């Protein structure tokens, strides 16, 4: 525990420095794209954020499989951290995508496959997190959440494939506007992607740490729960899944 804060501090510093560099590059350094103008700068956020939203579901899936195999709570914490970070990045991706699409394509929303996939992925993250919020804490919640996370991750490439077919069947009226990705523009992409990846690791690991502390508090409460004066009787009723057995004879 004592060695950890130092690493966290360094990581935070690196993230902040990279973010400052990225912002400088996006807003001051990189030349304005000729066809789209200044609005194109939002893509330097949009694309890396989209990438992270996808990476996060892979993290959720890997952690969920590891949890089901080992039943070690740390994997569950990692899966939650992935989903919570994922839902934020998916939301950012959708917002930056819409902000960009309106002036360039003239519409807020199109059936572009990556946008569609991220939107559905966003709903999957939300369902995963809502399930966790509804379900009382414990082994059963960790296990069922792992199943939901895994099903969502399996679904993601299928959704993407479906969205591609859909776009082919309904070619949109909007004109594609591919811009070049070499020179300063390409370099800015790369730096932005790196920065957001580093940010993702930082945010996810902070969430992981917080989860761990919550679990430790829970464990302490459990350790004292057989002392009747400490725990109100209602706490156990709330904590039990509805269909499971009563804790003792009626």
């Amino acid at each position, binding site marked *: 525990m004592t060695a950890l804060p130092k690493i966290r501090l360094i990581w935070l510093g690196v993230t902040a420095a990279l973010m400052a560099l990225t912002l400088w590059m996006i807003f001051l350094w990189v030349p304005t794209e000729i066809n789209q103008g200044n609005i194109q700068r939002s893509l330097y956020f949009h694309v890396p954020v989209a990438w992270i939203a996808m990476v996060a579901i892979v993290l959720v899936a890997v952690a969920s499989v590891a949890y*089901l195999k080992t039943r070690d709570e740390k994997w569950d914490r990692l899966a939650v951290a992935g989903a919570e970070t994922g839902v934020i990045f998916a939301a950012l991706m959708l917002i930056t995508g819409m902000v960009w699409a309106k002036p360039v394509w003239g519409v807020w929303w199109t059936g572009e496959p990556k946008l569609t996939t991220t939107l*559905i992925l966003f709903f999957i993250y939300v369902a995963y997190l809502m399930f966790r919020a*509804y379900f009382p804490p414990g082994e059963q919640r960790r296990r069922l959440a792992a*199943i*939901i996370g895994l099903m969502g991750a*399996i679904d993601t490439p299928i959704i993407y*494939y479906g969205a591609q*077919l859909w776009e082919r*069947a309904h070619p949109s009226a909007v004109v594609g506007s591919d811009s070049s990705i070499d020179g300063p523009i390409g370099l800015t992409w790369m730096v932005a992607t790196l920065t957001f990846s580093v940010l993702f690791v930082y945010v996810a690991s902070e969430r992981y740490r917080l989860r761990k502390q919550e679990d430790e508090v829970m464990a302490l409460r459990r350790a004292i729960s057989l002392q009747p004066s400490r725990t109100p009787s209602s706490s156990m009723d709330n904590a039990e899944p509805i*269909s499971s057995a009563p804790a003792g004879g009626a």
Partner: protein
Amino acid sequence: MLASLGTVWTLARKDLLLELRSRDIVLAIVVFALLVITIFTFAIELTPSRSRDVGPGVLWAAVAFAGVLGLNRSFAMEAEGSTLDGLMLTPVSRELIFFGKVLGNFIFVIIAEIVIFPVFEALFNISVLQIETIVIALLASIGFSAVGTAFAAVSVRVRSREIMLPLLFLPTSVPLIMAAVESTSVVVNGGSWADFSDWLQLAIMFDVIFVIASAVLFQYVLEE
């Protein structure tokens, strides 16, 4: 192998017998789906071309939303009488219990569709009773039953399971709903098999992947 199929059928037959007595599930799916379809006939002024444009979407949205209601019942009923515990006490492998429930739910969805499709055809004036759409309906129903059964089992222990199941089921089923809507569109606009083979492929892919994934994960759902 044969004995396993027998066990799956015994499980599904039990659900069919219960449904025959209570009529909870099929009736809920049929009535809810027909309500959705009827409301759309008021919400959209239906010209022949507009019917063909929006009809397939309305049909499959209605089936998906109504199906989720019925699937919810099929596990809620097992939980209410604690018969889920009774099933868990048997030495039958959890995969077989899963396939038994999927088969039962699949038959319910198909029976509901047998009622829904002709009524839809009459209200929207487009022909969906064709061999192509029947194949699409079968493929869609397999996927709906597999994913729906798995998620119904996941959400059965949640207090607000009526809310939770659609939130899990609908986003996951998006590729299957897309495939069903798009291929039905092609069919009602006069296209042939070759014109929607991509969508059929997507539906088959979804079915195979999720039948396997749900069956494997189901054992983890049921342990307590």
